[in-house]
C-alpha cells in the first residue's frame, strides 16, 4: 500500500513487542524524516557561523524532531522539548497536563545507582516512578534508534551524492 505501512510494520515487527499496549505505535518514520529534512535544510541555509554551532543546532533539531514524533503523551518528549525551549530562551510552550503527576503513588527515591543513572539518561526521568521510567526509557530507545537510522541514512546518502558529484565533476559530461 504505502511506504508508511511498511515502515510501521517494520517498526513494530523489529521490536517484537509482547505488549503493544505499553509502547504506543509511533507515527510513521516518514513524518519524522520529513520534519527533520525540513529542519536540516533550514539550518543549512541560514547563515551559520561555525560547524560546531551548526552541529549543536542540528542535534537539537534532531532531538526536537524525535520528540515531536513521539507525541505529547510521552513524558520524555515533553521534558526534552522543555529543555530545548529553555535553551532557546523562548517563552515556554504549553505543557499538556500529566495525569501521572497528579496521582503520585511513590516518590522517586534515588537509591539504586542504576536507577539514578537511568533517570539521568532519559530526559525527564527525574520525576517519574520507576515503572513509568522504564516505559519512557523503552519509548525513548525506540525513538532514538529511529532517529539514528534516519540521520545515518541521510549522511550516507549525502556522502554518496558527494562522491557522485566528484565523479561527475571529473567526468565533464554534465547531465544537467
Amino acid at each position: 500500500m504505502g511506504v508508511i505501512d511498511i515502515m510501521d510494520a517494520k517498526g513494530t515487527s523489529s521490536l517484537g513487542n509482547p505488549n503493544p499496549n505499553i509502547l504506543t505505535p509511533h507515527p510513521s518514520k516518514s513524518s519524522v524524516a520529513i520534519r527533520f529534512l525540513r529542519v536540516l535544510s533550514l539550518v543549512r541555509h541560514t547563515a551559520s557561523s561555525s560547524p560546531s554551532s551548526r552541529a549543536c543546532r542540528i542535534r537539537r533539531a534532531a532531538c526536537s524532531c524525535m520528540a515531536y514524533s513521539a507525541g505529547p503523551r510521552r513524558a520524555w518528549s515533553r521534558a526534552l522539548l522543555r529543555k530545548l525551549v529553555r535553551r532557546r530562551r523562548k517563552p515556554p510552550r504549553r505543557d499538556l497536563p500529566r495525569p501521572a503527576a497528579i496521582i503520585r503513588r511513590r516518590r522517586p527515591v534515588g537509591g539504586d545507582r542504576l536507577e539514578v543513572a537511568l533517570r539521568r539518561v532519559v530526559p525527564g526521568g527525574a520525576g517519574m516512578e520507576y515503572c513509568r521510567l522504564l516505559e519512557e526509557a523503552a519509548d525513548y530507545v525506540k525513538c532514538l534508534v529511529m532517529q539514528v537510522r534516519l540521520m545515518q541514512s541521510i549522511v550516507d546518502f549525502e556522502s554518496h551524492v558527494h562522491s557522485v558529484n566528484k565523479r561527475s565533476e571529473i567526468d565533464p559530461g554534465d547531465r544537467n
Partner: protein
Amino acid sequence: MEPPRSSGVGIDNSGEYSPEIAETLRFEEEIQSLIHPSSFDGSAAPTGGGSFTALLGLPANQAVELLHDSGAREPLASRIRVGGHPVHRPFHLPLDCSSAFPSNATLVDRAARFSVFAAEGSPASSSGRLKAEPQDSDSPPLDPIPTGPAKRKDTGRSKCDVRLSLSFKSQAKATAKKSKNAEENTDGDKLPYVHVRARRGQATDNHSLAERARREKINVRMKLLQELVPGCSKITGTALVLDEIINHVQTLQRQVEFLSMRLAAVNPRIDFSSLDSYLSAECGPVTVRNGPGGVVVDPSLWPTDATAEATRRLLVPQFWHIDLVPPQLQPQQSLTTWERDGAAHSQLLPNPTTSLFLYDPANSGNANVPHLTAKLKTAEDRALNL
C-alpha cells in the same frame, strides 16, 4: 476499645501493633478461608488444624495455639457457611479466647469481603458471607465487653506474638510447594481469587497486592526494554540488564551527536537544489513514495508547535517540491532506504544506489510546479483526513 468492624484492618489495639500484625491477621483469615470447606462443624477443628500443620509445616504446639483461635472462630465460620441463616450456636469459648473475638469479627469481615471479590463461582456462599457480615458485627460486641481491656491486651498480645512468629515463619518458608498447596486449596475450594493468586505466606493485604502488581508491571517493562536493546535477552539479572540499557541509550545519544556533527560538516555547497541534478544523473526516474498522502503537510501532531511549523514552512517552501513528490507521479520504483533497511538488516547501511528519497526531478522540474502544488494540496487534504 472496640475495634472497627467495618474497617479493613482489624487491629486489636490500634496503634500498638505494626503492619506485620495486620498481615498476620490477614494471614489468619487466609487460613480461615482454607479451613472453611474442610471443617464443617466444630468437631472438624482438629482436622482443620491438621491441615493447618500440613500446610504450615509448623510444630504441633503452635498449631494447637492456632487451633484455639480457630476453634474460637469455628462457630462463626460454620455459622457463615450455613448460608443466609445465621445459626446461633452457643459460643463455647474459653475466656481467654474471647479476646480473639474482635479480631475474629474483623477477620471474618475481611474474609467475607475478600470472598466477595472472588465471588464468581458461588454467589450463594458469597451472599451468605455478605449476610454474615452484619450478623458478625452484631454478635461479638456482646462478648468482649465483660473482659477488661487490660486482659484483652495481654492475651491479644500473646496471640499476636504467635501470629507474628507464624507469619514470619511462613513468609520465610514461602516455598513453591506451599504456594502450590495454597493455590490448590484455594482452587479446589470454591472461589479462586479473581485477579491475584495469594501465595502462601504472602498476605492478601491490599498493600502487598498492590506491590505485587507493581512488581509484575516492572518485570514486564524490563522485559520490553530487554527486547529493545540488542543483546540484552541473554543477560540475566536486573543490574546487568539495566547497565546494558543505560549503555545503549548513551551510545545512541552519542551517535546522534556524532551524526549531527557530520551533517553539519557536510559542505553546504551541496544543497538540495543541486542534489536534484546529481540524483537525476545517478538514479534515473524514480519517485518518492510518501504513502497515501501522509507526509506532505505533516500536520503537527501537537497543537503547540503549530507556530514553529508555520514559520518553517514559510521559510522553506521551495524545498517542498524537491523533497516531497506526491505518489501519483510514478508508482513504479518506490523503495526507500528504510524499506531496504527493514528488508536487509537492523543495522543501517543503505544501499547507496538507492537514495533516501528517490527523486523524479524530470517531473518535478520547474515546469511542473503548479502541478505539484496542486498535488500537494490534495495530499494535504488527505493528510488531514488521516
